[in-house]
Structures are given as C-alpha cells and as structure tokens.
C-alpha cells in the first residue's frame, strides 16, 4: 500500500493568529515583534503584505520600520498561539488519527488507507485547508507525498495557501533543480560545506557518493543522501506521554560561580520547573542527575537514586547535596543542570514515610520523649504535595510568573513595607 502523507504548515503563524482576532490587521503590512515599544525587539513573524516590502523574520524593529514606516506591530502572545496550535492539532485529528506535530505551526498527517473517504489526496488537502481557514481563520500550505521529507519539501513550494504534490517520480523535475540550502534539514553551515565541494543543487547532492557524505557528516550524511533521493523511511508517529524518559534543565550562568551556594536560587528554580513538568506528565522520577560544566568546559555529571518524587523540594535537596559533594573546590563553573529520570507512574495512594512526620519528634527533642506520632502532626511531604498541586493550578490559570517562591524574588520589596 502506498503511503499518503501530508504536511500542513500554517503561514506566518503568529501574525496570522493575531489577524484572526483583529480584523483591522487584514490587508495591511503587520508583524509580531519582540518588544515593539522599545524599538529594540526583532520581527518574529511578518504577514505577506509586510514580506512584500522585504521584511524578514529576525530583522530588528528599527530596520523593519525603515523599510515600511506604516508597519503595524503587535506584541507576542505565546499563550494564545499555543492555544491555536492545540486547536489545529485537534482539527487535524478529525481527518486522521495519526498526526505528528513538527513544531507549533506544522504537523504531519498520515492519510494512508483513507482512499475510500477522500477520492484523492488533493481533495483531502482542500478539505483540510478550508476547514482550518473557516474554523481557525488562519491560512496554511499543504504538501502531499509518500513520505515525511517530501511532504515537507512540497509544502515549502507554494506559500501561502498552496497545495502541492511531490511524488517520487517528480523528484528529478521539481526537487533536484532547487538549491541545496532550500532542503529541509540543511542549515547554513551544512550548505556552506556542501557548496565548498561543488554541491549546489539538491540534484548534485543526490548524485554524490553516499560514502563522501557519511565521511563528512557521519550518520546524518547518509540521511541527507537519502532525502535528496526522495527516500525517507520515518513513519508519522504520534507523540506519546510515555516517551518522557527524563526531564532535564540547565542554565549557563551570567557570571561564573565558585560554589554551590552561589547557584542555590538557580537550582531551586530549575528543580521547581522540572518538578512541575514531571507533575504535568503525571510522572515521578527516582534518579537525580546533576551536570556541572567548569569554565574550562570540562563536564562532571553525577547521579543518585532516590525514592520516586515529583516535588521541587526533594529534587532541589538531592541536587544541591550532589553539587556540594562533587563541586571541585576553587573551580569556577559556567553551567549547572539538573535531570530527573527513571520515571514511574505517579502513585495516587502515596506511601507515608517516616520523614513526613515532625522532625523534632524523630530526633527525640520533645519533652515527652516517647510521644506517639500524631496523625495531625503530619507535616512535610504531604502538605508540600498539596501546596505544589495548588501552585500548579494557579500557574495553569493565571500564567507561570503569577506566583513564585520568596527566595526567588529579585527585589525583596516585602521586607521594606
């Protein structure tokens, strides 16, 4: 059975999203820009009217306004774009159960075996395009082929609002004449290396000996060769929650640090972010790994096994302990990172631990030494878990920065009061 794979690519996604809720942007040059007020931001997405005036993504706002003085600038609203993207993925799911998001604004959709429903792939693409236009108010381009790579290349060929078929038998006429830097997966550096050895078009790349490419780029060289020849065995796979094997975050420090204490607040922040992400995936990790990159770029990683957790406090405490043990004294560090791994499903019925109970009771500091651990003295992990769940809910509703730890506040204004 021949595969039918579509790549649906939203055109000028951010600004199209803005246009969908603000009709006054229709037909005039407009762009979403980092910080339009300060004139120091950069263009994140320009609409086609603006592109006609030579505006490009990543241009500074100042440059853009020089090119197009009447340009309307809109502040980015990433939450809104994420919401639109989610709607898009749901909409695509109505056409086929196999949808793989490639980025916020594009996705592959596998229509193999749907011949009985849609007479031709083009007709299916037309239906999808109309539907997206009607329900999301956003234009898109669709590429059609028998594999993911060719579908992506096809979608790039006609923008905006284009439907393009690119079947393997059309490669020689449609794909090969294109310059090599137009190929999906080839960035400017790779393109420079290829042009340096005389490979200018995708056709040149397809004719090269694969050994040459694998010598130059390793395994990805072979993939380049296959792609240039229209071969891509990758299947459209749905992202699954179970794929999460580890959650790691790291920060390159603004200034080299000389001891774990200097990065304490950074570690708290990293631990909180990791914990929140783990809770979102309903996972608990039982391995904490730290990364320390020294100013000479040498890297130390260390890990320890812990009881399954998704609590920021636990992650921070273990990470901090590891850092303290393994931080080479008198060395300056440029990057620190924490990873939570070895996931298991979150346990609803939580096993109580002795560490949940009041610390002073455990250390016998009570006047009544043999005092029973009271059920109402259950401090620690249990309360923290409820606290973290509440904070998650608040962040979910009002945004990530609405609530934070006191220790993470930059100006501790509360103390001045």
């Amino acid at each position, binding site marked *: 059975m021949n595969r039918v794979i579509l790549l649906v690519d939203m055109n000028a996604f951010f600004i199209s999203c803005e246009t969908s809720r603000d009709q006054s942007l229709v037909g005039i040059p407009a762009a979403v820009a980092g910080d339009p007020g300060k004139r120091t931001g950069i263009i994140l997405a320009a609409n086609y009217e603006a592109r006609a005036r030579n505006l490009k993504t990543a241009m500074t706002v100042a440059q853009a306004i020089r090119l197009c003085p009447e340009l309307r600038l809109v502040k980015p609203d990433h939450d809104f774009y994420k919401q639109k993207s989610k709607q898009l993925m749901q909409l695509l799911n109505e056409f086929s159960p196999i949808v793989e998001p490639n980025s916020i604004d594009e996705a592959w959709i596998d229509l193999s075996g749907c011949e009985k429903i849609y007479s031709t792939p083009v007709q299916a693409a037309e239906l999808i395009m109309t539907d997206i236009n009607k329900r999301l108010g956003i234009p898109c381009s669709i590429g059609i082929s028998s594999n993911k790579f060719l579908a992506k290349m096809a979608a790039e060929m006609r923008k905006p609002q284009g439907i393009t078929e690119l079947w393997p038998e059309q490669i020689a006429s449609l794909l090969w004449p294109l310059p090599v830097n137009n190929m999906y997966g080839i960035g400017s550096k790779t393109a420079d290396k290829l042009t340096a050895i005389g490979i200018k078009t995708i056709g040149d790349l397809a004719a090269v000996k694969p050994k040459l490419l694998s010598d130059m780029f390793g395994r990805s060289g072979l993939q380049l060769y296959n792609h240039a020849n229209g071969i891509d065995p990758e299947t459209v796979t749905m992202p699954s929650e179970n794929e999460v094997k580890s959650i790691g975050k790291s920060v390159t420090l603004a200034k080299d640090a000389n001891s774990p204490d200097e990065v304490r607040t950074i570690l708290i922040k990293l631990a909180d972010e990791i914990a929140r992400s783990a809770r979102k995936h309903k996972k608990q990790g039982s391995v904490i790994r730290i990364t320390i990159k020294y100013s000479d770029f040498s890297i130390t990683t260390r890990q*320890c096994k*812990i009881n399954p957790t998704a609590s920021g406090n636990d992650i921070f405490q273990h990470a901090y302990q590891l850092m303290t043990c393994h931080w080479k004294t008198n060395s300056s560090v440029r990057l620190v990172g924490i990873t939570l791994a070895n996931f298991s499903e979150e346990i609803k019925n939580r096993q109580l631990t002795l560490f949940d109970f009041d610390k002073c009771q455990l250390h*016998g500091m009570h006047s009544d030494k043999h005092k029973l651990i009271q*059920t109402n003295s259950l401090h620690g992990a249990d309360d923290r878990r409820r606290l973290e769940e509440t904070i998650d809910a608040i962040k979910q509703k009002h945004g990530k920065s609405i609530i934070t730890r006191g220790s993470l506040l930059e100006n501790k204004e509360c103390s001045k009061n």
Partner: protein
Amino acid sequence: MKIICSRERLMEAISIVQKAVATRSTLPVLDGILIEAGDGVKLTGYDLETGIECNIEADVPDAGSIVINARMFGDIIRKLPEDVVTIESADNFAVRIECGSAHFSIKGQSAEDYPKIPVVEDAEQLKMKQHLLKDMIRQTIFAVSTDESRPTLNGVFFSSTDKTVEMVSIDGFRLALRRNEFEEDLPKMSFIVPGKALAEVGRILVSTQDETIEIYPSRNHIMFNTGRVKLVARLIQGEYMNYRSILPQTAETTITISPAAMMAAVERASLVISSEDRRYPVRLTTDDDDILTVSASTEIGTLREEINVSSQGSKIDIDFNPRYFLDALKVIDEDEIAIVFNGNMGPCVLKPLDSDEFAYLVLPLRR
C-alpha cells in the same frame, strides 16, 4: 606453591569468598581469589568494601601464594571429575590444576598486587551463637534502605548495652527491630553494618546449636569471625535515626492475630495486585470486634477475606503496601502476635504478645 585438598571443601570455600570478589573493578587483580598456602590454605575475596577469608584444610607441600580469576577458578573446580585436587603455581604465575585425569593449565596473577584487607585490631568483642545472629539478620535485613541519599539507612544499626543486643533497620516506610536478652553482661557498643555485608554474614552462619561467632567492631571496620571464615566490612559512618521516638507507645486499636493466617490472606490479596503495578493497596478493616477483613480491589479482580481475631479499641480502615506486611510476617516465628494501629495515617506495629523481642513498624498508604 603446591596444595592438595578436597574438591568439595575447596568449592565450598570458593563460593563463600566469591561473594566479596569485585565484579567490575578498575583493579584487575580484584577479579581474582587470593590463595595463600602456609600451615593451611586461606582463600580471600575483597572488593575494597567487604573482604572475606576462608580457611580450608589442605596438604601444603610448597608454601606460597597466587591469585586466580574467581569465575574461572569456580567453574573449573565445579567441573572437576574426582575428589582430590592438586593446585600448583610456577614462577611465571602459571597455575596447574589437576584432578583425576584432568589437567588444567591457566594463567594466574601475582599475589603481591593483591590489596591487604584492613586489620581490625582486637578491640572489645562480642560473642554470640551463630544461629541467633543468623535469625536476627534474617529478621531485620529486609527493611534496609537502598536509597543512597540517606547512607546511614543503607545498613543495619547494631547496638549492645548491659545484657541486650538490638538490631534495627529503617527504610523510611517501615522499621524492623529485633532485640535479644543475654545472660552475661555485654560491652557497650553501637555501629552501622552495610546491608550487603551483613547479608553475606547471614549466609556464612550455620543454624546448628553450638557454633559461635565473634564480632570485633573498630572505628572504621568490623570483623565477623567464625574461626573458619572471617569477614571484614567497612562500617557506615554517621548518626543513626532515633528510632525509639518513632515507635508509638499508645494504641488506638490492638488486634491479636495468627501471623500465618494473616500472611496467607495478604498473599492471596497480592494475587490480584499485579507485580508491575504496585500502586494498589491491601485494605484492612474491622467492623466487628472479632473479624479482620483483608481486601484488595484492582483492575484484575478483587479479594475479600475474613480472619478471626480479637480486637480492642476503635475500628480501623487502613490501606497498606502488602509487601511491607508480608516481609514482616514472613520472619515472625510466633503463633500469635499483636498488631497495633494508630489511625489511618499513623504507624502500625507488629509485635509479640508479651515481650519486646521484636517490633515491625509499617506506615500506611495515604488515600
């Protein structure tokens, strides 16, 4: 070096010292067993944490020493055809192993490279019956923590005062305590033995009535000596958790029960809890004074079982991890025990009816 000994004895000694042989060491000589022949023959395995020496009777026509790869040595001796083995090493560390009509020739390593097991200076010693220590180990070792973030809990806390020896292990979710009264006064000492080393001690000990073992703790190491076998382990340093304050002194509910009946019921409940999915609890309830209901309900199915008990205090309805209960119930030798509950979030303790010989504390699962 040349020795002549019994294949069976040699095999026994190899399997004892092999437990301390390093498996993935950066020091190649640690993959081997050290054989030292003088008055008798001594085999040694040592992974820099735990060292085990075992003496065997042998004829020693030629004193000397050699190191042989532990796995190969064990495999060869196991497959030998007859009961008398001759082992002979030459100058270039070549080793000949001969038995009946089988003649092996293998490469050994220099004994000079083999690290020395720390000498535990004969400090105060504790002497006890092997079968007693074997039991005490069996009855506590299951609750040793494997969580590396609290190193002191990775061992069994051992203490002696007056006439009492106590062994305690805690993994954060439960506690196992075993106490034994002696007739004579004991030296006052306390230390934490790594769980792995203590498990090996348990395997070396015999269950017969008369054999004894001597225990020599020093500041950093501890030696267990049965005469034939010596085990030296590095002690875990640090302060052990104050377990006395954890053990509840009050009881909201006390039931008297046959541990065997309870174990059987919890084992049956475990049948509907799949081994991969440990999220599901076993539920213990009392409605009536004389009935304890053990139940479990999962995607696979349900179990409900009633056990006759005698119960005092308030009614209970508590969830537990069945494994924690089973581990404790398995090592209890009594016919009847008391189980004390303290509400559905408080610790539960299994203990003897009229002594303080043991206490197994288990924390519930929060609903």
